[in-house]
């Protein structure tokens, strides 16, 4: 393999310094980017357009960048320009279907290119020649859909070592889980998983969209209760609860589980208090609830009996579940985005996932109300929707696992911890919405 790609990308260093911080998946936003270095680069396709795969280190973090090179940049790719390479244009290739189309073919071939290995999962025969379709950018990855068949997630910030998303999917697939999308292939390089391909669930709709359609229906009615309106979501919420419980059961069966006592929760509690400390400094409005929240956290110390811990989803909310014609499916097992990679691999109480989903129901209920003029009637009705669907979720969960509501102290502490995290997030990003987690804290604490 020639060294030309490396030189070429290295000559883009200045352009990358400007371009990287503008990307949604760039981690250290707000800090000056001084140190940018191209770790390695490999050509994946020659000609015009050409495709270069690069790993770039910026301020000590590793980023995956796919660079397209064209003599002429068509209009639809112009927004994704990175810079000039001699006479040619360099741009973010993940937006170029023509270049992306070849990636699954590399995987099907089992290609090894410049230290990158492209592999189909054992026993999977990948279809080739599929048309690629880039879809929306997420927090930390970029996804490309191939035909109606596969979705390839490119990890923009690859983590050295094991990849939780891949490992948990493989374990669940081996256990015969029907609540995940089948893993079909992996790209690895530089000691990290760079890409993860799964079966694409083309018939699916996001949990958030299905839940908020129900809320919209409720709020359009004058006085009907949540259980009376046509768009009632409780049946779906219950089936979702059962699906989540099934994933927990499958993870425990294949990867094991453990039981700790309340003393084993100390480090978690310390972390929860620490996060509260941080957020209190940033959001003064939280201060009036501090004592109650700390008391709720500390109540965990009084939990008698064992607390089961195991591998869990780690960042479960309505945006991480898909409704398909065959039922609910969970996606993105990468763990909590805010947690450090070494924390993400830890086993935790499955009630963390339950708490995440319960918080999400609260958000779904209030998102149409938040930010507008206060309307007591609407808030009461939205809260009724949230209560109804939170309960239905727990009932569904209880048909497969234990009823989460029997562990009220733990559930409450985890929900409050999640809400504290949300307060900071909303305070920074969407101040209008900070009322949602604050109201939840007020209610629960």
């Amino acid at each position, binding site marked *: 393999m020639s060294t030309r790609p490396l030189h070429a990308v290295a000559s883009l260093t200045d352009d990358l310094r400007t371009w990287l911080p503008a990307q949604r998946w760039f981690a250290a936003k707000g800090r000056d980017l001084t140190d940018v270095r191209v770790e390695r680069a490999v050509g994946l396709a020659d000609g015009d357009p050409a495709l270069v795969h690069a790993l770039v280190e910026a301020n000590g973090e590793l980023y995956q960048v796919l660079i397209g090179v064209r003599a002429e940049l068509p209009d639809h790719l112009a927004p994704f320009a990175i810079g000039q390479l001699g006479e040619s244009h360099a741009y973010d290739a993940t937006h170029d279907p023509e270049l992306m189309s070849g990636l699954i073919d590399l995987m099907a071939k089992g290609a090894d290119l410049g230290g990158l290995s492209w592999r189909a999962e054992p026993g999977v025969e990948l279809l080739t020649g599929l048309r690629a379709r880039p879809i929306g950018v997420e927090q930390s990855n970029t996804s490309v859909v191939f035909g109606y068949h596969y979705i390839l997630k490119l990890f923009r910030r690859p983590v050295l070592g094991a990849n939780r998303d891949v490992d948990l999917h493989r374990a669940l697939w081996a256990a015969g889980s029907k609540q995940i999308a089948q893993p079909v292939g992996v790209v690895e390089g530089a000691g990290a998983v760079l890409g993860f391909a799964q079966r694409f669930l083309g018939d699916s*709709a996001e949990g958030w*969209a299905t839940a908020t*359609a*129900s809320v919209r*229906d409720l709020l359009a009615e004058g006085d009907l209760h949540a*259980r009376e309106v046509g768009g009632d979501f409780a049946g779906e919420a219950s089936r979702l609860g059962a699906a989540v419980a099934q994933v927990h059961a499958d993870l425990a069966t294949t990867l094991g589980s453990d039981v700790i006592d309340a003393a084993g929760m100390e480090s978690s509690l310390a972390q929860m208090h620490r996060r509260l400390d941080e957020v209190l400094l940033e959001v003064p409005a939280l201060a009036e609830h501090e004592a109650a929240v700390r008391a709720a956290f500390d109540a965990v110390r009084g939990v008698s009996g064992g607390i089961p811990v195991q591998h869990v989803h780690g960042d479960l909310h309505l945006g991480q579940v898909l409704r398909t*014609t*065959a039922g609910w499916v969970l996606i993105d097992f990468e763990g909590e985005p805010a947690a450090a990679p070494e924390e993400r691999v830890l086993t935790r109480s499955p009630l963390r996932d339950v708490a995440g989903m319960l918080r999400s129901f609260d958000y779904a209920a209030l998102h149409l109300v938040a930010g507008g003029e206060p309307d007591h009637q609407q808030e009461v009705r939205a809260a009724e929707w949230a209560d109804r669907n939170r309960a239905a979720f727990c009932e569904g969960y209880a048909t497969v696992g234990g009823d989460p509501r029997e562990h009220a102290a733990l559930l409450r502490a985890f929900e409050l911890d999640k809400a504290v995290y949300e307060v900071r997030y909303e305070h920074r990003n969407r101040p209008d919405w900070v009322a949602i987690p604050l109201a939840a804290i007020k209610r629960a604490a």
Partner: protein
Amino acid sequence: MTVDNDAAPDAALGLEGVPHTGESVTADGHLVEPQAEDFTSARQAPPDFEWYKSAVFYEVLVRAFNDSDGNGTGDLRGLADKLDYLQWLGVDCLWLPPFYASPLRDGGYDISDFRAVLPEFGTVEDFSYLLDQAHRRGIRVITDLVLNHTSDAHPWFQEGRNHPDGPYGDYYVWSDTDERYSDARIIFVDTETSNWTYDPVRGQFYWHRFFSHQPDLNYENPEVQEAMLDVLRFWLDIGIDGFRLDAVPYLFEEEGTNCENLPRTHEFLKKCRKVVDDEYPGRVLLAEANQWPADVVEYFGDPEIGGDECHMAFHFPLMPRIFMAVRRESRFPISEILAQTPAIPGGAQWGIFLRNHDELTLEMVTDDERDYMYAEYAKDPRMKANIGIRRRLAPLLDNDRNQQELFTALLLSLPGSPVLYYGDEIGMGDNIWLGDRDAVRTPMQWSPDRNAGFSRCDPGRLYLPAIADPVYGFQAVNVESQMNNTSSLLHWTRRMLQVRTEHTAFGKGDFTELGSSNPSVLAYLRRHTRPDGTEDMVICVNNLSRFPQPVELHLSELEGRIPVELTGGVRFPAIGELPYLLTLPGHGFYWFQITDPQEEGEPQ
């Protein structure tokens, strides 16, 4: 039940003066039955052996449609007088519930003579006239035929009970005890306590899967099989285009089984099919089997040869799922049931409906489905209130025109041949005060005149009062006024039927759901490859929500093609590489033909 060994076998029929079974008896004890040659045969419908795959069916109750003789009850001649209307509307086939001679203890499904017509509806000659007039207009006619049992007034039963050793002594399932076939469930648990009833005349028990006045025929007896095949031939000779075979799973009994769907039942259906294929090609058999689609497909027969039992069967669970999907503003109730529907043989077709004269009771479906529907319905007081109550489409949808159009568009575009229920094309209402059965069987509303133009009789003499409330009453809702108003539901329905006729994809195309990220939008592709290799491709997009919705469809495999909206012919932007964005009004829908740009527009 009177015990009279000397009664004439046709005594219970009440058919004096018209040809019927058992008017005389041959020397060897056989009943003389009317033959098709005794009557005028209708002309044939235009030849097309696959007509049922793309036909629009129209269920019409003879009693309710049009009264020709002013006695307050609709009749066959009256129906024949309205064929111009049905032709104008664009229906392809009429489905008539049973019009045979019957004591009417089970809505005419208790047939006392397969070869005679219920006198209040007319005669066999009248039916032949109706058929002839329908065929003249390109409209076909099918009717229900109950294979499993007869009325106990049928001369076969009367002969059999009186003369156990005569030719009819083995026509029914007789037993000295009531203990055989104990694994068979009792279907009408509300009214029957056993599948056996003691007959004091013969001194034996007889077997009945339905009401005790409906003894089951004994299909073990080859003569019974032949007699029933001859009943098929009788009507096919007169010219009928097919039968909906009622209660087919129960024809045979076998100890140690539940006596349903037995292999020999399928064997007999194959015999029926062979009679049709060999002697009357182009006529159809439609199975009435209220079961799960995965089980119903058995009644299409061998898929290797395109099916060798029934041509059609009703898809029962789709209907409540459509209602549930629009109520929930979610496509999943429909998507799920279609995903669970197995492929059917090449020569087969589903029949689908929104409403008919019967209501789906949830007892007919699988445990899982019943749980699902109960779980969903039970939580929803409004849906719960509609379980088991027969309502018409318009009142079920609060008379909302947009929803009526959306439901009809779904019915006309989902896989299967649609069955319309008489009156729904004008948005007729129901009268729940008439009770469960009759609420949706009121007179057809033709005009604002007396009795809705249905009959010249005294209003008090009508078999059921016409709907007269201010919203749905015949003063407001009738054919005449909607004919005169081109924006009426009637004209809209007619236009949609025309559009459907122009595209073979609706009837014969395969079905692919086009998923999208919007859970409230149901989109699908219907594609039919014609014998000459060209394709008819239609995309249907339905907004199940009352709010406007956007949807992005992934159609890049059709890049460069141009969607043309089917009701107005408007060309939409060409399909490109990016997702195809559409916006729909609340409860809106689109039908697009997918065209090749080369075939469109003026010469370049």
